[in-house]
């Protein structure tokens, strides 16, 4: 059975004090917080540097990057080199984990500071960077039949 007393009155005193404190809300569209430099926002690709190595497509945990590769002679050297003729990033699947950014050997895919992504149609979120759209259902790494590993004695017990 509760007895009204100091605990409640002390609590009420704290809320009354907070009534006159400075507000911690920042009114969003009028005030934009400066983002730290490591922020991971929307991805963007610098297609001039892309060498179509397909590393980003393989490592993406969500299969959100789809690349169609073609051998084409782009820099006039006479030798056809891999070229990404279709490059689609699907923002509705992107995890913003940054793995593709880390793995790219030429640093052509990178994060911007955009985070306000909106579209009226879900299919518009698949942004196209190359010349033509790509079928997103192509699996970058076809399934490998797994074999059960041989039973080994545990190396150490307890935690690592």
């Amino acid at each position, binding site marked *: 059975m509760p007895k009204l007393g100091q605990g*409640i009155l002390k609590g009420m005193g704290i809320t009354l004090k907070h009534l006159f404190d400075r507000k911690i*809300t920042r*009114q969003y569209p009028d005030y934009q917080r400066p983002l730290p430099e490591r922020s991971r926002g929307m991805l963007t690709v610098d297609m001039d540097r892309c060498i179509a190595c397909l590393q980003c497509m393989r490592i993406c945990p969500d299969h959100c990057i789809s690349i169609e590769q073609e051998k084409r002679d782009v820099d006039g050297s006479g030798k056809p080199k891999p070229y990404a003729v279709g490059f689609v990033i699907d923002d509705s699947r992107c995890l913003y984990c940054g793995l593709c950014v880390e793995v790219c050997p030429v640093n052509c895919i990178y994060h911007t500071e955009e985070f306000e992504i909106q579209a009226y149609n879900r299919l518009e979120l698949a942004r196209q960077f190359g010349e033509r759209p790509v079928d997103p259902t192509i699996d970058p790494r076809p399934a490998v039949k797994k074999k059960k590993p041989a039973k080994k004695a545990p190396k150490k017990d307890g935690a690592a």
Partner: protein
Amino acid sequence: MSLDILNQEPFRFLISFGAILFLVLNLAAVLTMAERKVSAYIQLRYGPNRVGPRGLLQPAADVFKLFTKENVSPSRADLWVFLLAPIAMFIPAAAVWLVIPFAPGAVVADLNIAIVFFIAITSIGALGVIMAGYGSRSNFSLLGALRGAAQMISYEVPLILSLLGIVMLTGSLSLVDVVNAQAGGFWHWYFLPQLPMFVVFYIAGLAEARRVPFDLPEGESEISGGFMVEYSGMTWALIQASEFASMGLISAIHVTLFLGGWQPPIDALDLGSFNWIWFGLKTALIIFTFQWIRWTMPRLRMDQLMDFGWKVLVPVCLIWLFVTAGAMLLLPSVF
């Protein structure tokens, strides 16, 4: 055809009743905004401040939205009971304002049994809650209705007992007499000789208005809306309006009975027939404390609520009644 005819019955009554209804509905709308702003400031944020200058047109936007919403009702609900329940909740909250004196001589219906009128009509609020809960025919609503019935009926006892001290001191059941007896500065107001009753009426009023810490019928966390869970659109708006109106009503009665009604705190600040400003200020202060308590405390569980009402509030009332009676006998010159 002079305007004097408007001062005759029944025109005077009809026009002032219309004015009271207008006042109550606007009070409900303004209180939704006030509640949100007070809660926001306590929680270190801004509250609605986009619609209109500093957000003052927010109630208009809310009401407009609720007008255009669909009134969904459960398919197997008892439609008569379901749809009449909000009306049954709103009318008591609006009707008692007829007997409250706003300024010297400005009371719509000067009943000489105004206190009994208040008690009787407030009891009907419990009926509205039960109608809403049973009519919805849903598990959560049923629980909310049962809790609401138990709570509101059992907290009427301390509510009524705490008034009896004032009735003894004033010698009459009329609210106009009660306010007139508190003339002469704030040391004559009844909250000083009746301090325990002041607190008990406040707490019982919180329970009658179903506010935290007594909002278990509406328990948002366990039964997500309790008796109101199946309402939407204008029916829900009417239930909310009745809740805020009854909060305003309890504050107004509290002020009238214990804090001197329209009496100014010091005689020098008497404003004559503009004393409704004092009335408004005091009522606003009590409403603010209702909201302050809501945003600070958790809610009581049902058995603790009933324990508190019956085992703490009622004995306090009874003891203080004896003390008041004894004081009136022993010091007849003062009282």
